[in-house]
């Protein structure tokens, strides 16, 4: 049995029935990682030995007992900007290259509560700033479908690990598309929950009002299973919503979208959209119609303002969030400094990569006296308009369907010299973060070059069930998700 090929649901069932031990699972994944990781480079750090020790302890403890919790014994990869107690959490930055948090993120504590197994921490663009995982201080990850292409970003390591069967499911984080865009690049499923659905405690902040942790999985059912565990109110995160959490796997009972009104925003099918992507997405819209959905045109007129708005708000928040990396308390401290000011400047000069520095400077500028009203305040006003666009559209429809990314995964190095081109690869995902809605990326085809194409389904706030239902219906009617990358 090739354990690494199973979905979370299959592996959990197998383990639950006692047909396989946790140690056997870790052994299978260790083998798989050893095989493909040198090519994919999904992980920053691996803790397979610790996972094996935990697995053996779990097997010992379970002797004669039923395995009750769905994530028990399941081998996960976690994006390296989510704090794991006692395990290196670097954010792919030299700044935190030696940082070991003494606490778990709330999402991790919930997984730990189910006795999950941590295989390792996955690569990302430094502090989640980027769309290709090339901005990592530890080198880029590769796309398992084509090792010359990027896996997307910033959760590129998590998406590549899932696509290359180096873990059963993974956690990513999404500030402007960082779960959905790499999921699309790697032909897997990525869900960004509603802002406030999953606690941000322990997620190293990039842009606090946009960040959200979410699942990256092989199929929609797995995303629902994982979301069940990590969602819910957390007293440690004031922005987490104090709302009941439904059983998301129940949303998967229907395999149709009957009575669902599905909107297609014309603004998302304009200039810059690759014809192959457009074709695949429009075919998916047709499929949803066949499945009983009522397809409607909707307007999201402020779409044009999204990139500018996002890069003001996200960078402003980042400039403040990253101020704590000053060499005083933890992480890097430049050895070249003799005065306080020198310590600050050299530590940050040496610790941060170019993209992080660029965004800190942009954000500092946007918040500066005399510029605040023209930039930050204006961006907040535009954000309100963008949110209202979605509110208006969702009075007409129950789901909105769009592409995830204008093109399939691009080549390594293709855009790394042109930040603006790189920023445009998030054009279809960032509005959702600004509005706070939930959205999923699922596979909907391949380019002629054999690279996956993603479909985005956006729902109303806290209506992840509708998003999952639509995605599941489409997935059940197609085979895209069954295709696996060829990496060996």
């Amino acid at each position: 049995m090739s354990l690494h090929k199973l979905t979370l649901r299959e592996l959990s069932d197998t383990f639950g029935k006692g047909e396989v031990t946790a140690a056997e699972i870790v052994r299978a994944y260790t083998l798989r990682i050893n095989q493909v990781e040198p090519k994919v480079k999904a992980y920053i750090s691996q803790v397979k030995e610790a996972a094996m020790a935990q697995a053996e302890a779990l097997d010992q403890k379970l002797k004669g007992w039923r395995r009750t919790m769905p994530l028990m014994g399941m081998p996960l990869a976690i994006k390296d900007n989510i704090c794991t107690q006692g395990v290196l959490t670097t954010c792919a930055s030299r700044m935190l290259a030696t940082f070991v948090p003494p606490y778990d993120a709330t999402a991790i504590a919930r997984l730990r509560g189910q006795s999950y197994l941590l295989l390792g921490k996955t690569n990302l663009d430094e502090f989640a700033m980027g769309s290709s995982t090339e901005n990592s201080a530890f080198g880029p990850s590769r796309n398992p479908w084509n090792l010359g292409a990027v896996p997307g970003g910033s959760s590129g390591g998590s998406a590549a690990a899932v696509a290359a069967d180096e873990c059963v499911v993974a956690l990513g984080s999404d500030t402007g598309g960082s779960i959905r865009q790499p999921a699309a690049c790697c032909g897997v499923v990525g869900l960004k929950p509603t802002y406030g659905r999953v606690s941000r405690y322990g997620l190293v902040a990039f842009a606090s009002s946009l960040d959200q942790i979410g699942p990256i999985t092989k199929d929609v059912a797995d995303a629902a299973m994982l979301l069940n565990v990590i969602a819910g109110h957390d007293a440690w995160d004031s922005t987490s919503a104090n709302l009941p959490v439904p059983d998301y796997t129940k949303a998967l009972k229907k395999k149709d979208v009957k009575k669902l009104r599905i909107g297609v925003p014309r603004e998302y099918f304009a200039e810059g959209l690759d014809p192959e992507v457009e074709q695949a997405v429009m075919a998916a819209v047709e499929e949803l119609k066949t499945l009983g959905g009522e397809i409607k045109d909707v307007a999201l007129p402020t779409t044009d303002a999204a990139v500018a708005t996002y890069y003001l708000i996200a960078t402003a928040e980042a400039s403040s969030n990253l101020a704590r990396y000053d060499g005083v308390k933890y992480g890097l401290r430049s050895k070249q400094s003799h005065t306080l000011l020198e310590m600050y400047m050299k530590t940050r000069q040496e610790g941060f990569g170019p993209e992080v520095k660029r965004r800190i400077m942009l954000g500092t500028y946007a918040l500066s006296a005399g510029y605040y009203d023209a930039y930050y305040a204006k961006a907040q006003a535009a954000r309100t308009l963008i949110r209202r666009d979605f509110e208006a559209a969702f009075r007409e429809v129950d789901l909105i369907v769009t592409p995830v990314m204008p093109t399939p995964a691009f080549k390594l190095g293709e855009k790394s010299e042109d930040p603006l081109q790189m920023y445009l690869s998030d054009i279809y995902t960032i509005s959702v973060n600004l509005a706070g809605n939930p959205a999923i990326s699922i596979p909907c085809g391949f380019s002629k070059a054999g690279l996956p194409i993603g479909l985005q389904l956006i729902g109303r706030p806290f209506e992840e069930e509708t998003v999952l239902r639509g995605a599941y219906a489409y997935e059940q009617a197609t085979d895209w998700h069954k295709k696996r990358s060829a990496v060996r």
Partner: protein
Amino acid sequence: MNNAGQAYEVVIGLEVHAQLLTKSKMFCACGADFGLPANTQTCPVCLGMPGTLPVINRTAVEMAVRAGLALNCAIRSKNRFARKNYFYPDLPKGYQISQYEAPICENGVVEVAVGDSRKPIRVRRAHLEEDAGKNVHDGDNRAVSLVDLNRAGTPLLEIVTEPDMRSADEVVAYLKMLRDILMYLDVCDGNMEQGSLRCEPNLSLRPVGQQAFGTKVELKNINSFKFVKDAIEYEIKRQTKVLNGGGKIQQETRLWNVDKGVTATMRSKEEAHDYRYFPDPDLVPLDLAQDWIDALRMALPELPEARQKRFVTDYGLPDYDAGVLTTSKALADYFEACVTLHNQPKTVSNWVMGELLRELNNAGCSAASSPVSPERLVSLLQLVDKGTISLKVARDIFPELYASGKSPEQIVQAKGLTQVSDEGALEKVIGEVMAKNPAQVAQYRSGKDTVLGFFVGQVMKASGGKANPGKVNELLKKKLAG
């Protein structure tokens, strides 16, 4: 240009940082105590570790609202926190969580007594924020600076006035009033030396009669009422000298140097930070329920000003007495506890303001922890009333009463200080005194009544102060009349 002789008016506004008496810090569960070993009162949140998030302390919000209500502020039910961004080693996150555009309290006013009149001082705003830690530079190795983050994240209420004060005395009067109010509310311990109440005056001069404000200077490092007065008076003199010499005042922050008794430049306007305030996205805006605010208003204790007025009207005390007795809640409570047991307010007031306050001040002790309980003080006063001891004896034994922990009865008994009222015994003493002073007897009998005082004194002296003065008077008149 020389302006020698020009008279100036000083204009002063005050920023006060009051550390709130919460059990835990503003945004985490760490304790908020003073004087613990360095960095033992910290957690990932107040250390600003990656991924951690703040959670607002409800009690701190409650204390801010109560203080705001007591300062007659409008409470802004929808208020929010903002980040104040700057780099400093004692600031773990690289920003301080404070309030900026939407403070919790606004537009208050307090009346302070200045000489014989009362003057309103307007409170522009009072907002919540977290304190920073402390940098320590005087360790064994002076090449190294150390950071103690025990205080980082403790809750502060920053209370800012309008520029309404016109002298150092007004500032001190306002500050004392503010401190009393905060202590009455149990929201701050008012300890200026330990830094739980810190004040930063900003001060400018303008020629008398001019409307426009002069250039202001902010003063820091002031940790007692005396230093407030000293620093302001020094700064007025300094600025007057600069202006009279034709110079200009630079907008700057100056530090009070206690040892030298001068202020010196800390940073100029050019070096001032751009704090890049923006709403803290980690905290949702507060939306306080009006019911909750109303309930807090109803539950406010009687404040010093109202209590002072009541002491005058209800107990018939002079303004002065009422003012002294209400300077602290503990002292006022003590007074009222005594009056409940012994309904002679003025007598009680004299004792509390006199004997008791002297001992308390000497010991640096609060009335709340006075070793002489109200019950003990009242039983002493009742011994005087019953004539068991004289007023003089009562005064004489008070220090022992304070120091020993014994009851007044025990002390009086042990020392044999019971007052002599027995007519036979007193007549005997009077007889002896008269026999010794025949000339004065003759004077009295020839109509010089004032000599009576001399005889009372002699009799009291002869009895070792134990004679009942009333009885002595009565008997003397009888005997001297012949």
